[in-house]
């Protein structure tokens, strides 16, 4: 048992030319070139972050994803962010609820999101703890796969200048803290 609140002072590390920042906050309120929405195959926005996208962004994002129709597991697609503080949303489809090869699918999903960011010359991209929480990907696995993908992208060059991992609370912040700190 722990007796005190988790300290969530942001942590920043430079990996090659990329600044990786871990922070606790409100993903869909960040002023970034894009934030990543952990999407379903049919791109339906749903609740959670989807609630915030629809409420803060207006109806534009919903219309765009409906027009696109869907993506396959491990793929990503980019839309505008409607009236939100971010400019774009990268919808990246990752594994859910213990499905087979969770790790491989999560890796593909991360790489696709980073590739979209690269192709579109995005300078700052924010990620949630991918797949953790509602979709049940263990936090430790989410952190490991995300950090590996970010490290590889940074080493390969031309990744976004700033990559943010934005956690909801102290618990998921803690799961990423050591990994980001060790970058």
């Amino acid at each position, binding site marked *: 048992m722990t007796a005190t609140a988790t300290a969530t002072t942001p942590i920043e590390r430079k990996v090659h030319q990329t600044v990786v920042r871990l922070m606790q906050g409100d993903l869909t309120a960040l002023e970034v070139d894009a934030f990543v929405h952990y999407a379903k195959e049919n791109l339906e926005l749903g609740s959670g972050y989807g609630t915030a996208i629809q409420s803060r962004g207006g109806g534009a994002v919903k219309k765009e994803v409906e027009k696109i129709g869907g993506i396959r597991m491990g793929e990503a697609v980019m839309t505008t962010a409607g009236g939100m503080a971010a400019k774009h949303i990268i919808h990246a489809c990752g594994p859910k609820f213990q499905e087979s090869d969770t790790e491989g699918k999560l890796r593909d999903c991360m790489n696709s999101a980073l590739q979209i960011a690269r192709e579109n010359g995005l300078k700052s991209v924010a990620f949630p703890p991918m797949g953790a929480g509602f979709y*049940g990907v263990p936090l430790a696995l989410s952190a490991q796969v995300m950090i590996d993908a970010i490290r590889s992208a940074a080493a390969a060059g031309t990744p976004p200048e700033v990559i943010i991992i934005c956690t909801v*609370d102290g*618990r998921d912040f803690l799961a990423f803290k050591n990994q980001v700190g060790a970058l």
Partner: protein
Amino acid sequence: MSETRSYKAQKLVERLQVKVNRQIMLSLEACVHCGLCTDQCHYVLSNPGDVTYAPAYKADRIRKLFKAHIDWTGKTLPWWVGAKSVYTDQELEDLKDTVFGKCTNCRRCSLNCPMGVDMAVFNRMARGLLVHVGVMPEGVAVVAKDQWEIGNQMGVLKEDYLETLTWMEEELQSEYNDHSIRIPIDKMDADVVYSINPREAKYDPRTIAEAAAIFHFAGENWTMPSQGWDMTNFGLFNGDDELGGAVGGRLYDAVERLRGKKLVISECGHGFRSTRCEAPNWGKRDVAFPMESAVITMLGYIKQGRIQVDKSKNSEPVTYHDSCNNARSCGMTEEPRELLNLVCSDFREMHPNRAENFCCTGGGGAMSMTEYAPRRLKSARIKADQLKATGAKIVVTSCHNCVDGLFDLIKHYKLDMQVKLLVNLVASALVVPERPSRKMRPLEGYKILVIDDEPDIRVYLGKIFKDQGCLVTEAPDANQGMRAIKADRPDLVTLDLILPYMTGEKLYWELRKDQKTADLPVVIVSGYAAVDSPRIDFFGFLAEKRLPQPNGFLEKPVDPEKLIETVRAVLLEKA
């Protein structure tokens, strides 16, 4: 015999081995099928003859899994003890229909089992197993995802929550014609940190205002957190201990961050139970501060003479519905009655009551599962009969979830009744004192933003204001100042003119240009008075831009009394 198991069924079976603990095992093993629990369940009583609603029958849907995979009797004599595993996705759907759609985890059967079988504890576990593999009613998924990602069960965004608090504060100030009534947000070192059900922010904000009025007239030193404010916990309903621990942790973090002395939990049965009793275990967390239901807080204020009430203000016949979680699981049965007898003149019991009361039929997350609404309303007949027999015009409860369940069944069964919370009755019985019960300091409750690039000055000014009872926020530059103005809506800003990035002049100009901030009181606190002083420049700037004078202008070093006098005069004039 080897049957192929679907991927999801296999994952569920693997999870079962992890989730069965001693408490669950005892309940799964102890049933002797005596049938004594059958007539305790509101589903059974409202659906006579339908065996699929009987608690022991429903329990056996889960028990057979336990027998098949964990209990030695099932491994040795499976046909004898009814052991059977799950193999297909359809079987998981059938299990979902039972554990989500035919039981509200109300624990009425548990209380009446001579063998101590606690149906709700393993029904919740079974829900958790299904959620783990993504099998759950759509509404359950929606609510759980909102609470995981937005931080509350109804997806209320931070700006909407804060706007609601501001709106309620304004309503209260005009209702009581008293500018000192505040809903303090993120106040440090408060004696009470008040947490609410998101239903209040979204659909029933009057309950926030009523609680605020009670805190105010009690002279309480209280606050509400800007984040981590949701005391409900869907983890109790969907069986997800991880969600339960995360949600509780956010609330505990908020209290610790604000160095609050006590957490007061608004009226909500499952929220109270989860926050006070369950979440520390789910999240493996020690909680060092006391936690209390708002019912106890309100009762305490009356008994200590901190608020006065007049019960004749609530003269209609009132009955009380005990929420399952408050009464059966937390033993809170007498305090609400004591409170009711103090604030209303015609209180009559419904029967059965206290721990024997029937569920509102909307418990256990049932209100989110629209597909089961017809079944829920049919099973509510027993509750409707119970309410009707009281002859009361108002049914009071101490749970926002029960309010929704009761409201729905009252409408369905066309009962001539209103549903209220205890806070509604206490607020309407309040006798407003001539003066607030605690001596107010001159600037008590006002929100002041100090914009200054020098940390020492911010601390110095902040202390002066805090000593006067103000809520103080700080910003080291104009950009952060502007953001704080938008987020916190202070009553007054003290503004330094020499600031990094953007000057104080420019910020003043921006504020006056914007309709929303044009009237925001600004007192300039600047450090230069020489010939080349910005004061001269500043007034030249005002003339050039045709801007109004600031509400006050003080030169550093600032005399504390002059500062208080100036700020007070500005605020009084505004009021």
